[in-house]
């Protein structure tokens, strides 16, 4: 095989693409279609609470077109990081949409589901064996962290996809996955050089993000060959240049030359970028350095508590010029009142009050280099995080009342210091989560963390098959 052609419809399934671009890309006869469907970028609540970042209808629109395209050409479709965070609940949600489309369009195919959510007993075993290692920087990770995690997923490499392809899957829906593994799995399996395959995958996983003149999320296409790959956006208005393709390895990566995967590191130090036409780019020279030890990165989220927030603004220049002192006195008053109300039922460390001051340093916090306040008004966003929603809202009500009337020396008599746009003044935010692991596992093999189920889908019916 001299060449493998790859279509990436969009950077995230659910973010959209132009149907015309997709049709043009199908006419280029891709050997497979790949699509990323997740990320940590939307934040820890998706992993923690088990919901997706993109709306169901938006995912259904994209998935329907992609699935119909793949089935029309009879080529494999690989989807990774289903439902944003790629846990079992996310995978189930995504497959619900997939099955709905299959039923509506009377499609027949062999479906492989690859799980990425990790068994807590398994993780504890690997922890005891000292086969879970921290990346930099990493929070403390121990058995207690595993216990209190809502969910921990492993980021799979190319091998679980390759196993599903070997089993004859037409459509693969995987839990949390390396974005690049979705696109590198098949080319590597067919013997294309890993440096070329993984680099092409890195460009493809973001759809048309690497073009010069991005309009909306859209399709990207690559021709992977033995010593280079060529990349082009199917929409003829979109242009890739050597600079735009070289720049893409910077995006959301800490190191633009070395991208670490489960099985090794993509090394772009000697990559060469040339214009192949006015809108396409040829890339060569990229290398892949196999890892001495196969590793799988973990992502986990735990519940921090429940949150309620109060939004209020300040216009009085007397208050603005002493805002740090005012908010520090407010915090003291809040804690004193909470102590009166809750006594021993709520200790100091059990709840958390955070005051953000927009107009001063709301965006950068302590790192804000501008010290002088230049605004004539400030917005205060006061967050309360507590063990229950009821407590968070009760404390938020205390925040409102204490904030409303906290005096300043310039005025005598009862003041009202906060302008609250909402009634009730507080908003309930529900459960809040934090990421709690930045570590890798050293598994025995690339598959043990990623079990696979096979199904025969025939319109509305599905039968579980034996792998």
């Amino acid at each position: 095989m001299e060449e493998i052609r790859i279509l990436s419809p969009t950077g995230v399934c659910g973010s959209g693409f132009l149907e015309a671009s997709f049709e043009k890309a199908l006419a280029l006869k891709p050997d497979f279609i790949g699509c990323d469907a997740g990320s940590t970028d939307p934040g820890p609540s998706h992993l923690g609470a088990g919901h997706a970042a993109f709306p169901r209808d938006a995912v259904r629109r994209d998935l329907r077109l992609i699935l119909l395209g793949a089935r029309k050409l009879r080529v494999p479709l690989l989807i990774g990081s289903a439902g944003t965070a790629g846990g079992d609940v996310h995978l189930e949600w995504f497959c619900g949409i997939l099955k709905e489309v299959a039923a509506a369009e009377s499609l027949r195919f062999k479906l492989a589901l690859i799980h990425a959510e990790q068994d807590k007993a398994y993780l504890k075993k690997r922890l005891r064996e000292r086969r879970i290692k921290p990346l930099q920087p990493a929070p403390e990770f121990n058995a207690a962290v595993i216990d209190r995690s809502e969910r921990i997923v492993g980021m799979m490499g190319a091998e679980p996809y390759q196993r599903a392809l070997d089993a004859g899957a037409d459509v693969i829906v995987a839990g949390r996955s390396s974005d690049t593994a979705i696109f590198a799995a098949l080319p590597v399996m067919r013997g294309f050089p890993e440096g070329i395959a993984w680099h092409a995958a890195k460009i493809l996983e973001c759809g048309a993000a690497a073009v010069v003149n991005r309009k909306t999320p859209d399709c990207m296409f690559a021709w992977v060959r033995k010593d280079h790959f060529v990349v082009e956006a199917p929409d003829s208005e979109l242009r890739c240049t050597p600079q735009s393709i070289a720049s893409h390895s910077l995006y959301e990566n800490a190191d633009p030359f070395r991208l670490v995967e489960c099985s090794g590191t993509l090394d772009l130090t000697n990559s060469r970028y040339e214009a192949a036409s006015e809108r396409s780019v040829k890339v060569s020279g990229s290398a892949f350095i196999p890892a001495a030890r196969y590793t799988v990165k973990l992502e986990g989220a735990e519940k921090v508590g429940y949150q309620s927030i109060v939004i209020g603004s300040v216009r009085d220049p007397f208050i603005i010029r002493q805002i740090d002192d005012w908010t520090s006195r407010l915090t003291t008053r809040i804690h004193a009142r909470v102590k009166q109300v809750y006594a021993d039922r709520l200790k100091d460390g059990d709840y958390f009050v955070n005051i953000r001051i927009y107009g001063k340093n709301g965006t950068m916090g302590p790192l804000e280099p501008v010290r002088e306040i230049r605004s004539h008004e400030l917005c205060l966003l006061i967050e309360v995080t507590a063990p229950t929603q009821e407590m968070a809202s009760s404390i938020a009500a205390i925040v409102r009342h204490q904030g409303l009337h906290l005096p300043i020396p310039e005025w005598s008599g009862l003041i009202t210091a906060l302008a609250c746009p909402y009634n009730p003044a507080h908003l309930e935010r529900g459960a809040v989560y934090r990421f709690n692991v930045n570590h890798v596992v050293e598994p025995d093999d690339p598959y043990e963390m990623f079990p696979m189920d096979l199904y025969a889908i025939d319109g509305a019916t599905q039968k579980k098959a034996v792998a």
Partner: protein
Amino acid sequence: MKALAELARLIRSKNAGPFELTFDIMFDDAATYERVKRSGAVSREAVALRYGLPAADVKFFYCDHALAIKASIPRPCVQGDLRDSDGHGGQQYAPLMDIEIP
């Protein structure tokens, strides 16, 4: 002297995963990129100073093919943690904009 923001095509910040923050300073043409690179004004130390870090905590790269300078730092707060104010890390680059380039 010119401010970096007047010379760059794009200065941006973004999460590089939940635990790191990365800055990209990108240029339109090789001459401007070379001018900034040669000036040495955008450096590991300059980034460290602006984000209150030891220089050893800053990853720093010249990306000649991309006509870009890149730096990455540990995230001041883990993404989404209680004190985090910028979930995508997208508005943390402003202190780089007024670096003076001779």
